């Protein structure tokens, strides 16, 4: 589609490709590998697009893409259906509301924001699981997953950098 002599960004590039990469990374890290008795960590790769898509720009397609990604996580990991879809949408909504405060901040500060949003998502997942299963998940296990997920910020930063100014309609 041509508009004002520029070129609009194809949703497949900033939504489809990161989604696919998240699916591949999730399947890779689910491999039953144990080295010296230690298993691979299980980060929530979908937190990267949940944070970055809301930072790049508001979109109609992004929430549904996150919902699909969340449903995939639930089914692939064998968890309750809708748990991660809802948790990721909480993260997306939070960033969407606070994006004016986040935009233009330094990289360490953005990392702190990413960790904060991840923490809120994990707490949301904790609460939804409590309501669904009527049992309390292990706080230590939740903390470990939060820690390894918070380390994924460089990928979110790269995604934001790559597509923040890519669409001529939003310049």
């Amino acid at each position, binding site marked *: 589609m041509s508009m004002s002599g520029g070129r609009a960004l194809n949703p497949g590039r900033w939504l489809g490709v990161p989604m696919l990469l998240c699916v591949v990374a999730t*399947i890779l890290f689910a491999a039953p590998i144990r080295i010296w008795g230690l298993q691979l960590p299980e980060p929530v790769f979908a937190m990267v697009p949940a944070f970055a898509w809301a930072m790049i720009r508001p979109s109609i397609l992004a929430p549904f893409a996150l919902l699909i990604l969340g449903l995939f996580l639930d089914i692939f990991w064998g968890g309750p259906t809708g748990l991660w879809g809802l948790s990721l949408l909480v993260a997306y909504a939070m960033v969407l509301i606070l994006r004016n405060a986040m935009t233009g901040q330094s990289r360490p500060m953005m990392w702190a924001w990413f960790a904060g949003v991840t923490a809120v998502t994990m707490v949301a997942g904790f609460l939804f699981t409590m309501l*669904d299963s009527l049992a309390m998940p292990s706080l230590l296990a939740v903390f470990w997953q939060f820690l390894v997920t918070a380390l994924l910020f460089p990928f979110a930063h790269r995604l934001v950098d790559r597509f923040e100014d890519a669409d001529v309609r939003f310049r």
Partner: protein
Amino acid sequence: MPFREGPLGDLKVPLTWTAAVALIVAAVIAVAFLLADRRETLQEQAYGVTRQTVDVVAKPVSGAIAAPGRWTGLGLDFVRSYFFTASENRRLKTELAEMRQWRDRALALQDQNERFKSLMGLRTDPPIPMATARVVSDSRGPFANTRLADAGSEKGIVVGNPALNERGLVGRVVGVSNGVSRVLLLTDIASRTPVMIDRTNARAILTGDGGPNPKLEYLRGVDPIQQGDRVVTSGDGGVVPRGLPVGAAVKGLDGRWRVVLFADQSSIDFIRILLFKDFAQLANEKELQAKTLPPVTTEDPQTSILSVPTPAPTPAAPATTTPSAQPKPPTAAAPKPAQPKPAAAAPAPTGTPQ
């Protein structure tokens, strides 16, 4: 007429608002999914066609991804065994000498056990068939702990079958498709397994919470458990057979009793799935479905213990009356064992409990 040329063509909705509406719609759909989910019931119907389809697709993909890791592990084992052969040989010799003593003791106990069984006429459980499967995918998060195994309905696996590795119980099957099955681990938050403390026979429910060491809940009795006690399945409720090894009891940092799982001490590559559904399969179904039923005798209502005792019959009474209709006087009902009466003089009433 194209939309842009119509009266609404100039209408411009702020993108943030449309995104917010999309977000709310997506959230409503997610909530509906979560409310409709019946995973925690662990029933066959709760595992939908979508999950089965994803499992079938994920099996070859995850299997291909897991293969290099498995090969690397095998290679490392080979290199390690090459460099540490001498020390391993010494260790194995010591272990073998110790095991020989245990073997002799086990054989003696087995012999004694067989004799006791035959003396008591004890009916033991028949061996349960099992299917071996390789784990191709493993989820370890706080909200879901499951494994995908590459054996399914074609091997007779059904929902509810317990899964073990060489050390102990791993979990139970919650979803089956052709060629693949999903095992819910003991550590999953939805997992509840009836167990007992081997030393005291105290019952408890092993409850997963997403961490590595599931909790022991509803533990009853006075001083029922100690640090290091062996925990095995109790078989209560017919979910899993009795006596499968589970783990060792430890006191957690939160003051609750937890279990260090034996299954975690070994490789997670292979699991054995017991084709055990419930205790009904342990009975001989042919005997249960026998057409000829054993004779059933019922109490004569006229001689009920609640009714008024009838007077003793006269010696001239006709012999055609049933013995149960002629209750003997108390003296005749309890003959001395040293003086048994002849069978012809006092025929035993047929149909009365012996």
